[in-house]
């Protein structure tokens, strides 16, 4: 890789960014040259997204220097970003969204080249994607939107992309599509482009990166070529003591009575962890939302709710943006500790303090606004909200989106403990690794259950096999 000896695309020297007292980025030096594929990892709130925003000019550094040796600005230098939270205009079509970031598209008939360009880009990165360039973005699934955004990031747009920053691009993609992306990133880098790849899925990082940069509390704590890291070494560098995850799934069969059964065939017993799997967008999220909505009412308040929901799409389904962290956690548990319809504020504070400790929310004051937290920490708040309630069934819609490895291990352990106490979990995940930890797995295809796996049947191969339509002679 080091044979691409040329001028760097961007150099950061001791760049720092503070938000009031929060030192989101605390002096980072980094050089990105053509051909680099940098894997950027770090715990939730380590400062990864902040670093991205400094490089692409979205934020100005509080101190330090950011230079583009070959150009005047990030835009001229060919720096492109694909952001952590989806940032397309949902009311516009795929092609029109390209127009937003492609200022040079002009003339009365700009639609034709716009369509051609985005289709070309999608075809290159995600062969067989099946996305219509004339479709409005809000008719696409979250995975398709992510794909469009990545395609726009890599598309030429009148110049060439030289550095593409991908902030957790695979968090809502399933394994197959993620693999297509990784292939493209590798190809892009060999052809002389540069990529900064941010992900909490360390496997992907190892697969794609030529160099790994580890951020911890706003500082670079390690920067080495990929082959000099081991998986455990990386996790250690990120500063979390990971729990032993070699542990096999517990023996099934010692569960309570069945307490969930849907028409679709989804079922769960007391104390069981049920996984939902399959390719993204095949109806898992809908099945879970349906289940939750049928077990709760928008009319009758329920003192002891039958189910709670952990959202994966936190902007749309989870976060109450004007509130403090504390109020965000307590909302589902309010009725449990109410006196004559009034909120018991002492109990509320108690709950939030307990969960801050148990799940490790990174903040010094739980009355801070929720939006001051990093993406992953907001996700932890949603977890805390669900677990703080006494509901027997916890429904989780890809809840680990953007949660770092260390926390994931903690949450897995927590889920195990709660399940042992009799809690039931329904857990949809885009990561097969997570699904494999469940007691039972339902695989979805085209909105229907295509397989039910238990115990030793739960393997990556079986899940994949059930996910894809098999050509069976009949």
């Amino acid at each position: 890789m080091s044979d691409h000896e040329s001028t760097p695309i961007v150099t950061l020297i001791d760049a720092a960014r503070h938000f009031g007292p929060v030192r989101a980025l605390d002096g980072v030096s980094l050089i990105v040259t053509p051909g680099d594929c940098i894997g950027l990892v770090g715990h939730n709130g380590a400062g990864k997204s902040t670093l991205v925003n400094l490089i692409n000019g979205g934020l100005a550094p509080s101190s330090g220097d950011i230079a583009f040796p070959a150009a005047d600005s990030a835009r001229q230098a060919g720096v492109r970003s694909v952001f952590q939270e989806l940032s397309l205009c949902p009311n516009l079509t795929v092609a029109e969204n390209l127009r937003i970031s492609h200022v040079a598209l002009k003339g009365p008939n700009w639609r034709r080249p716009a369509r051609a360009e985005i289709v070309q880009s999608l075809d290159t990165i995600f062969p067989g994607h099946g996305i219509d360039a004339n479709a409005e973005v809000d008719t696409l699934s979250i995975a398709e939107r992510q794909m469009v955004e990545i395609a726009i990031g890599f598309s030429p747009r009148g110049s060439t992309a030289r550095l593409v920053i991908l902030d957790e691009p695979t968090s809502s993609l399933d394994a197959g599509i993620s693999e297509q992306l990784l292939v493209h990133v590798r190809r892009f880098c060999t052809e002389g482009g540069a990529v900064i790849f941010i992900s909490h899925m360390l496997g992907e990082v190892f697969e794609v990166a030529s160099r790994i940069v580890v951020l911890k509390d706003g500082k670079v704590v390690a920067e080495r070529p990929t082959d000099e890291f081991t998986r455990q070494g990386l996790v250690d560098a990120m500063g979390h003591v990971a729990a032993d995850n070699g542990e096999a799934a517990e023996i099934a069969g010692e569960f309570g009575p069945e307490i969930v059964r849907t028409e679709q065939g989804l079922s769960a017993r007391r104390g069981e962890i049920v996984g939902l799997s399959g390719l993204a967008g095949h109806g898992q999220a809908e099945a879970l939302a349906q289940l939750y909505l049928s077990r709760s009412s928008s009319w009758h308040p329920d003192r002891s709710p039958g189910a709670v929901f952990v959202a994966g799409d936190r902007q749309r389904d989870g976060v109450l943006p004007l509130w403090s962290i504390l109020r965000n956690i307590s909302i589902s548990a309010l009725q449990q500790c109410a006196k004559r319809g009034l909120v018991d504020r002492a109990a509320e504070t108690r709950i939030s303090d307990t969960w801050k400790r148990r799940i490790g929310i990174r903040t010094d004051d739980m009355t801070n606004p929720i939006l001051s937290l990093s993406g992953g920490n907001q996700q932890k708040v949603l977890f805390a909200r669900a677990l703080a309630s006494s509901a027997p069934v916890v429904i989780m819609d890809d809840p680990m989106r953007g949660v770092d490895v260390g926390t994931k291990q903690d949450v897995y352990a927590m889920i195990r403990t709660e399940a042992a106490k009799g809690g039931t979990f329904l857990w949809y995940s885009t990561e097969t690794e997570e699904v494999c930890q469940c007691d039972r797995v339902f695989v979805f295809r085209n909105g229907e259950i295509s397989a039910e796996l238990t115990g030793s049947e739960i393997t990556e191969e079986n899940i994949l096999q059930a996910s894809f339509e098999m050509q069976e002679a009949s």
Partner: protein
Amino acid sequence: MKPVTKPWLWSWLAAAAAFALILALTSGRGAGELAYAALSFGAFAAIVGLGQMLVITLGPGNVDLSIPATMTLAATLALKAMGSEPGTALLGLAIALGVGAGAGLANYALIFLLRLPPIIATLAASLIYQSLAIWSNRGLRIKPPTGLADFATGRFLGLPNVAWVALALAILVWVILERSIWGRWLLASGQNLRAARLAGVPVELVRATTYVSVATFAGLAGYLLASFSGGAALNMGAEYLLMSIAVVVIGGSSIAGGNSNVPGVWGAALFMFLVVSMLNSYGAGAGARNVLTGAIIIAIVIAASTRRTRA
């Protein structure tokens, strides 16, 4: 919650400034008289404003444009039922509140069952309420029972009775918003309805009770106003349409929902009365009065918002 952010302060400052400017003209004469009038008339704006605030808190697009028609209808039916007979005040009150609640239910039914945007549903419904009011009494002005009229125009401990009613209502709303679970639900629904639903909030119950509350408040305001001014008139609520929205936003509640501000509503209600009085006292014509009122409203909003971002 945090002492630094007090957007309601601005409405009170503006009200105080208008008050001072009037007194500057009279060199201090008539202060008590003016304050008394401001409290009397501010009370009506405060009652409808509190209701409108609850609805606006429900989030973008939520607003009740049927307040004037509901006031008129409730007052018309209540006064017709009382027929100036002594001892019927409570019956009238029950009818006014009942009509209000019924209007609120109807509004909500249109919004929920027919999925109409609230702004259109309440507008359309208000035309129907207006027709009902015309049909039921053809604009005949029936006097309230004497006892009721005396109560509405009377005072207790030096303050107008209507102001006491509005004050009690304000405290009730404040407690509900700040302390009750229903208040939390309302604020959560206002920020993100879908997220609130998925967090276990009975959002439709919250929305329904909110629309019923605002209409009930409007019914109460109509009942008191008709008793105060000697009878119901078909156009009696007209000026409370813009007024109810204005007092909410001048009072510092976020129009984006999820955030409300009870003391601000009272400050803004007093301000809206005092600013017109001030401009009248200084002899401003209708044109100047409107331009200045508008300019002051915008100035308050700007002041309150820059204050908020700095804090």
